[in-house]
């Protein structure tokens, strides 16, 4: 019963926190640019406004186009709900391990890219073709990082890895450092943040993610936005639970542990968001065809980490 409660709690939590996180990032960025910036809760308002509006669908749009937002949202949400945020040992965490999680996000992206092609506009095409190009490097990089972690923890289960990390027998490791660096790079790419993509822009041939979802409106757009916010949250919390595992409540922890867990989780999110904002403001967006080099570096980092672990378990 308790487990069910936790699982449900977690799912709600990620759902509620994700717009806030985005709002935070936007706010911090604005402040760093000496602007007032939108209020923290603006993303919630946007979402509500969007769901209430009715959908304007291109004549050519197919049934698939209308289903995809729900698929994408569901996939991302399920993925997010499997990450131990404030407490490890979630009820269903064993139903999908890290590899499956990567694959879930992969399927979400798969469908989103299809959506970009469905209406048959040039912008949609640009968006999805670039998206898959980026993914074709980001996904292997992510998998290599997963390998590294799995080899360190002797498991691909997120909660198991988290538990392993908490129990301080890990110590500092080269491979883990490489993995962290790679993971951050992948996270930036996957969430379409600067320098890979600019979530704020809506013209220019530079956009990737936004170009794919150009034809969406109303509730569909709301779902898409929500799922991208979820994705951002997911990555930050993955990094959090893997590399900053402190404070996560043990499987059968009492109320205080849980309180600590939630608190520390929120703190981690805030920190992550802040750092992201700082990073984004301090760097310029790169040309699309320099992205492969960036992600290739991430892939190499991951591969290097794995190799080190293959060659000697202790590095």
């Amino acid at each position, binding site marked *: 019963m308790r487990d069910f409660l936790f699982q449900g709690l977690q799912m709600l939590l990620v759902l509620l926190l994700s717009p806030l996180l985005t709002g935070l990032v936007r706010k911090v960025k604005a402040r760093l640019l000496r602007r007032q910036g939108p209020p923290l809760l603006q993303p919630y308002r946007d979402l509500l406004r969007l769901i209430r509006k009715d959908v304007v669908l*291109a004549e*050519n749009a197919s049934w698939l186009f209308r289903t995809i937002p*729900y698929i994408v949202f*569901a996939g991302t949400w399920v993925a997010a709900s499997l990450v131990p945020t404030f407490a490890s040992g979630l009820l269903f965490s064993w139903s999908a391990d890290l590899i499956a999680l990567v*694959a879930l996000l992969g*399927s979400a992206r798969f469908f989103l890219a299809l959506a970009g092609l469905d209406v048959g*506009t040039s912008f949609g095409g640009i968006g999805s073709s670039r998206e898959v190009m980026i993914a074709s490097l980001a996904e292997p990089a992510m998998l290599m990082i997963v390998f590294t972690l799995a080899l360190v923890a002797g498991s691909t289960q997120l909660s198991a890895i988290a538990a392993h990390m908490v129990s301080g027998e890990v110590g500092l490791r080269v491979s883990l450092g490489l993995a962290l660096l790679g993971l951050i790079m992948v996270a930036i790419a996957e969430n379409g943040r600067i320098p890979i993509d600019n979530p704020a822009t809506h013209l220019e041939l530079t956009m990737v993610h936004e170009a794919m979802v150009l034809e969406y409106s109303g509730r569909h757009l709301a779902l898409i936005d929500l799922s991208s916010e979820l994705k951002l949250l997911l990555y930050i919390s993955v990094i959090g639970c893997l590399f900053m595992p402190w404070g996560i409540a043990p499987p059968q922890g009492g109320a205080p542990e849980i309180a600590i867990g939630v608190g520390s989780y929120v703190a981690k999110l805030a920190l992550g968001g802040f750092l992201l904002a700082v990073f984004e403001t301090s760097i310029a967006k790169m040309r699309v065809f320099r992205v492969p080099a960036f992600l290739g570096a991430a892939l190499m980092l991951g591969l290097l980490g794995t190799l080190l672990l293959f060659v000697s378990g202790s590095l």
Partner: protein
Amino acid sequence: MAIYALYGVGVLLALAPIAVVLAASPRASNVIYGACLVVALVLCMVGVISLLGRTSSSVTLPLGLPWLGAHFRIDALAAFFMIVVNLGGAAASLFAIGYGQHEQVPERVLPFYPAYLAGMTLVALSDDAFSFLVSWEFMSLSSWALVVAHHRERENLRAGYIYLMMASFGTLALLLGFGLLAGANGNYAFDAIRASHPSAALAGLVLILALIGAGSKAGIVPLHAWLPLAHPAAPSHVSALMSGVMTKVAVYGFIRIGFDLLGTPEWWWSILVLAAGGITAVMGVLYALMQHDLKRLLAYHTVENIGIIYIGLGLGLAFKAHGMAVAAALALTAGLLHVFNHSIFKSLLFFGAGAVLNSTGERDMEHLGGLIHRMPRTAFVFLVGCVAISALPPLNGFVSEWLTFQAILLSPQLPSWGLKFLVPAVGALLALSAALAAACFVKAFGVSFLGRPRTPAAATAHETDGNSLAAMFFLAALCLVAGVLPGIFIDALAPVTDALVGMSMPHQTGLDWLTIVPIAESRSSYNGLLVFIFVTVSGSIAALAIHRLASDKLRRGPAWDCGYPDPSPVTQYTASSFAQPIRRVYGTTVFRAREIGEMPASGATAPARLTVELHDLIWDYGYAPIAAFVGGAADRLNVLQFLTIRRYLTLVFAALVLLLLVVAIWQ
């Protein structure tokens, strides 16, 4: 059981002459394909029974080599591949009942189709080198006949020619391998071969020959050249069989030799197999990304999946060589499961391509588009196939790749250093190929089924017939079932792994929530069923909530497209423009891809052009030189046809003097 299987094969073989007679009549295709469907189902049943019943039975007929006889045997491995072959065969026959109606030259397809099915089943059944090779080459021959069925197109003939050459090359390689195993006095029976434990060096040589021989049929890079030519050339249901099933028969041949006949492997074998697998996987998908012919794209993907399967097999060999039976069982199971899965979704996809080809007459994706409106059901099943082959949960493609990843994660325990360095690289290649496959199928489905129709043919397409749809939906359902309930299939494979590596994965069915757990739950586990349920439930909850609480209104309007919508469909992204970023990233090195843009001078009326040129380096540096050599040698020797009698006499004279000298010296 074996004897029943042979009866079935006999019926199939008997169908061939019947087909020759019937071919003229309009109802011939129904009769033949119907019969094939029934027989294939029966054979499939036979396979299932003898696999689950863990019975192995053998028959010896007074055929083939006189003093040996033709040995046939169903053991677990043979039974499993009988299932794969005949499941695909049954689906293809069902599909063909509808599809075959549109065949212009049934008399060139009907007789060879049952023979082809029979040949593939016989390969799985045969238990001595001679009947194995006879069935093997018979399979190639009948499929060759099907490839050249539409012989009036020159390129089909060319495809058939290259196919036949490569097939015979492979057969000769296998023949040499068996020759080594059988020894000078010819113990061709597999039992005798098992009994004679070959020396390490000899076994290694045989394995290399098997890798070449079976690989040339399976499409291991660089022996894959024939595959993307031949598979599309055949009628679509045959393409499905060639791609989905025959390549698996080739894999069977490799497993039979590498895991069964050769006994305990050497660790360095696995290096060869793993390297071949990794390279094949990535090269296959990269080739596929560059294609805009739908069927050829699918054929190249077969190459990729064969690579994935060989990675599984290579890991299996490595673990077996080091006596890690549990891990070996896992790796082998992964490979075999992928064999099964790929046979299903690849057949499904080829059926889809066939349906498209039928209703539009187009294989070129650049001429398709918007089919999802005209043929929604086909589009749906094709989408399922795409998701499955892209290894996305919760469908079956993901399960087998997930298992392969788990096997890779076990390999740090391997002692030998070569593997320590190779395996992670192979893992990276596997991951890369998975991601690229997803990209490729976004392109395949998006360009041909989504968007706006690019040609009138696509605009006027119509949904395909009931039988074809039935076949496709059946396979699609299988994809889902195998995806959400993989435990059943993994357990079914236990007899095979028991027989080959002496161990099998832990019993899966009966775990709570039908999870699959390769080694231990603490290590890793996956539950396709739950993932499926979660996704559907949360998706529908969201839909429900939003439609109830917020708006569910919907207006149709023109596409927005940043305010510059263009009415003409040519402005859509095409297959090649979709692949352009990836081509820039990978193609420049792998294919020496070059983009030549020519911009007319300002004021000139000529259109601006962008032409892309790709080089198939494997062809340019591998096959072309061989062809050139043969041609050159033929030309040079051809002079000997045009000598004067006197010169011919001189040849005789020279030979005589030479031999006399030899004798004079020899004494």
